[in-house]
């Protein structure tokens, strides 16, 4: 997030798109509910009418995968009606002319036809967000998990920049990170193209700095493979060894049958986890890690706040903290590691990562610190891009044209399928389904379907149905609700026995390599 979560309370307009905030980020929803109490106007755009949409000043239901069309329509209205912040654009951005040329060619009627949102509603969205003094954008995987995910995000950045809604308290472009430490895993260089602190592996200076620190002559400078690329490499017999730590791609990744096959085929698979997940069942070596309650360390949350994790109990059985496991294997492999504990590792991180340099365990007592925090005296940074100073210098507008999703409905697969979470479960359910209270609350998967579609298929609430896509088929119970509109169905992805990721489309965004989990075409048959 460019801004802090608590700042939302002071926003006067909040545009939520592709986020079921009350379910997936309940403690962010707290701030949004408060903003509403404080008089903020909340705008929600989502194919599914989620809980927070009930409280929205305006809720629009756009068709899955049509975000860019909706956003371009809004920006057309903003430019045409003089709601753009020209002073901000002139002082702090570049690329505006090309962007404007594209937006000028956009027709609101086309946007309405593509998105299914009437022109008047696109206008109202634009008016409210465009006129806001402190407008905040909140989004989640509903924006990113598309073949044009990067374009969706760029469009949101355009929207914030064109109205000058960035670099001040209560504004910003705010992705809600789905996992507790997805921010940290990225910060720490758990990506194929960057070292910790987003220092590119291709950059000579960065490579030298890390090589020196790690006692190596050189480090690889070619960009590595992303997850989907690794699965392809395994298939083509270009990858023989894979070490998976704390992930469950057999359930979480699109086209699950395909993933499973790759992991069955690979020569050597190491899985380090806390439960015997469907992925671990395929491993050649299973390493029992410790849960968050059994070790020390740090997590970075969605607002870049680095916070301590503290050991409450000893690891269960013979399990070990993951850092100890890595250290042992690395040493035996030939790269000696002898850290006394996580705080020593953190000190090394701080030395090599500019945005973390001022942070130490001592300073993390209390409220934690929001990076960037360059020096030990620096208080941390609640919001980024202050006064329009962007990381790259000037904020760059991207002219983004609308492109449809990779797979569209047709006669054989006539329903749009979209996916998400339920309030009582988390991701692949590895942890939550081992929690009695949560399992009691929601114990099996389901498919949400509009009453009209259910009537047409002659099925009743709670009945079983077969759901098929071009990649696989599953059976699940249906829940009849008008949260989803006619022609659209929704499934949560926590349940391996009705794993919706057997159906989802692995087609991915060309830049971010993020799969299109939020849109695919399916057929429904009564069983």
């Amino acid at each position, binding site marked *: 997030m460019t801004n802090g979560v608590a700042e939302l309370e002071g926003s006067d307009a909040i545009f939520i798109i592709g986020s079921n905030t009350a379910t*997936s980020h309940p403690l962010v929803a707290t701030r949004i509910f408060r903003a509403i109490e404080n008089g903020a106007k909340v705008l929600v755009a989502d194919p599914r009418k989620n809980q927070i949409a009930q409280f929205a000043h305006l809720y629009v239901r756009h068709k899955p995968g049509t975000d860019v069309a909706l956003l371009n329509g809004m920006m057309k209205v903003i430019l045409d009606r003089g709601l753009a912040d020209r002073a901000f654009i002139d002082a702090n951005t570049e690329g505006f002319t090309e962007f404007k040329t594209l937006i000028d060619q956009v027709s609101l009627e086309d946007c309405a036809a593509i998105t299914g949102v009437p022109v008047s509603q696109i206008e109202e969205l634009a008016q409210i967000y465009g006129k806001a003094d402190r407008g905040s954008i909140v989004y989640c995987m509903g924006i990113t998990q598309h073949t044009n995910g990067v374009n969706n995000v760029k469009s949101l950045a355009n929207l914030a920049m064109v109205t000058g809604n960035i670099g001040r308290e209560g504004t910003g472009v705010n992705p809600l990170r789905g996992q507790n430490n997805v921010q940290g895993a990225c910060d720490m260089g758990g990506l194929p193209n960057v070292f910790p602190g987003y220092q590119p592996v291709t950059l000579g200076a960065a490579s030298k700095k890390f090589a020196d620190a790690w*006692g190596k002559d050189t480090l690889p400078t070619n960009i590595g493979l992303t997850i989907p690329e690794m699965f392809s490499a395994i298939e083509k017999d270009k990858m023989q060894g894979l070490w998976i730590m704390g992930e469950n791609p057999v359930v979480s990744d699109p086209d699950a049958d395909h993933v499973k096959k790759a992991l069955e085929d690979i020569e050597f698979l190491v899985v380090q986890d806390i439960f015997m997940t469907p992925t671990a069942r395929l491993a050649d070596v*299973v390493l029992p*890690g410790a849960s968050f309650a059994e070790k020390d360390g740090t997590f970075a949350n969605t607002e870049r706040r680095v916070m301590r994790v503290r050991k409450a109990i000893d690891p269960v059985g013979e399990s070990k903290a993951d850092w100890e496991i890595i250290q042992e294997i690395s040493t035996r492999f030939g*790269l000696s590691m002898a850290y006394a504990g996580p705080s020593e590792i953190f000190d090394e991180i701080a030395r090599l990562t500019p945005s973390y340099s001022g942070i130490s365990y001592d300073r993390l007592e209390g409220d934690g610190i929001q990076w960037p925090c360059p020096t030990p005296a620096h208080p941390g940074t609640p919001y980024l891009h202050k006064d329009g100073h962007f990381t790259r210098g000037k904020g760059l507008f991207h002219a983004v044209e609308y492109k449809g999703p990779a797979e569209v409905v047709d006669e054989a697969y006539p329903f749009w399928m979209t996916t998400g979470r339920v309030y009582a479960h988390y991701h692949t359910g590895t942890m939550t389904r081992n*929690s009695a*209270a949560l399992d009691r609350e929601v114990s099996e998967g389901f498919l949400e379907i509009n009453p009209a579609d259910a009537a047409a298929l002659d099925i009743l609430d709670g009945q079983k149905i077969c759901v098929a896509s071009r990649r696989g088929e599953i059976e699940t119970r249906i829940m009849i609700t008008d949260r989803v509109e006619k022609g659209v169905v929704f499934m949560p992805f926590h349940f391996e026995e009705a794993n919706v990721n057997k159906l989802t489309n692995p087609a991915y965004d060309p830049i971010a390599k993020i799969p299109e989990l939020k849109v695919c075409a399916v057929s429904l048959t009564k069983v």
Partner: protein
Amino acid sequence: MDYQNILTTCTYCGCGCNFFLEVLDGKLVGTIPCKTSPVNEGKLCIKGWNVHQFVQSENRLTHPMIRKNGVLEKVSWDEAFDYTASRLSEIKAEKGSDAIGFLTSAKVTNEENYLLQKFARAGVGTNNIDHCARL
């Protein structure tokens, strides 16, 4: 009699709520939201309130295992460490560094993510490291 409250950060979503894990005689018995946390101000969701439950589940993995004759068998840590290190060394020697890949995790700590990418880059010599940021 030993009763402790350990301040920590939630392992579920990206909100990063702070709470105390209640430990009575070495067992987790409850979760209490931290009232003075700037993130959650003494509030939690249903997952947070029950986060202590999965930790001591009987389904937890408690022993390292190696697949022998097609079946996963319990082994000692020494055997698991040596076997993993030597198999990775063999693959690197035969097929090169880029024949090995790593999936690190949005669920483990910063320190652990840092170590695994350090091992991938400086130990094995590959940038094939990624995690589920996209999922």
